[in-house]
């Protein structure tokens, strides 16, 4: 009986300690998991945005705008995605969420004009934010440009795409 009593006590101690560690790390795990989801969604958005730029298929308003101001963008161009990083930017009392800014690095050798590149970068950023909103079902919380995008505990904005 003593043996069994000791066994049960050790078990309870280990179990209690395990539960304590699990509970204390649960919020951390959840936070990391959310960040992981944000970054995975952002990558999906980069893929779609760069394909849209690459294939040169746009909404009608944008298409007409490009005919006048950015004729180079009427034809496709090759875009290479390099990397995406995030910067935590503290807590925002307005949205009551933590703020993240995403910075995307990409490369293209077929478009040299800075304004054209900015248009392409804006499209990539748009699809990045849209993809994040879709993943977290927060499309109704933001505007038509999905700026900022929202996850459960973060609100996400984007830097201009860095062309290298």
């Amino acid at each position, binding site marked *: 009986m003593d043996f069994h009593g000791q066994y049960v006590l050790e078990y309870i101690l280990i179990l209690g300690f395990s539960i304590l560690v699990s509970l204390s790390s649960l919020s951390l795990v959840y936070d990391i998991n959310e960040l992981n989801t944000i970054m995975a969604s952002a990558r999906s958005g980069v893929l779609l945005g760069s394909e849209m730029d690459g294939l040169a298929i746009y909404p009608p308003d944008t298409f007409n705008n490009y005919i006048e101001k950015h004729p180079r963008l009427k034809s496709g161009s090759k875009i290479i995605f390099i990397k995406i990083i995030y910067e935590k930017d503290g807590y925002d009392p307005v949205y009551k969420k933590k703020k993240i800014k995403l910075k995307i690095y990409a490369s293209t050798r077929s478009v040299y004009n800075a304004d054209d590149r900015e248009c392409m970068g804006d499209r990539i950023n748009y699809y990045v934010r849209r993809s994040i909103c879709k*993943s977290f079902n927060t499309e109704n919380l933001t505007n038509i440009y999905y700026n900022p995008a929202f996850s459960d505990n973060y609100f996400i904005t984007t830097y201009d795409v860095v062309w290298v």
Partner: protein
Amino acid sequence: MVEVIIFHIDNMDKNGWVTIDFMVAFMIILVTIPSITAIISDRVETVNSVREIAEAKILEENIAEIIDMVYSGGPGCSYTLKMPPKIGNKSYSITINSTGVYIMFKNHIGTEFITPIRITKGKYSNILLEPDKTYNISNIKFRNNSNEIIIEKI
């Protein structure tokens, strides 16, 4: 009797361990699965969307290439073009004029340049290619020894 009780307690201990292990694993799964599902569904949707747009672009480029090929073939050259019924279960429309081939797909427009030439559709100059229809694209001699591309529905 004592052995039976000890066996019973041992058995309870083992069951307890299994249950707690299962609960911990289940909690981890509960936290992880929704995010993985969201990522996977988002990625699948992205890939499907890219595939459809790429198919639309390929169709547009093929038509532009065919028109250029018929034009460069000289008078008498023709090509029979069968339009696909849909692109990825979605409707589309193709418009052609002398500046290029335009595709309208999923409320997006894309264009592909062609050699600047006179293109007509029988009596009409506004050329709209409809899905699931067959067209004959032919090169004929026009006035002043210039060539003209005529697109007719078969």
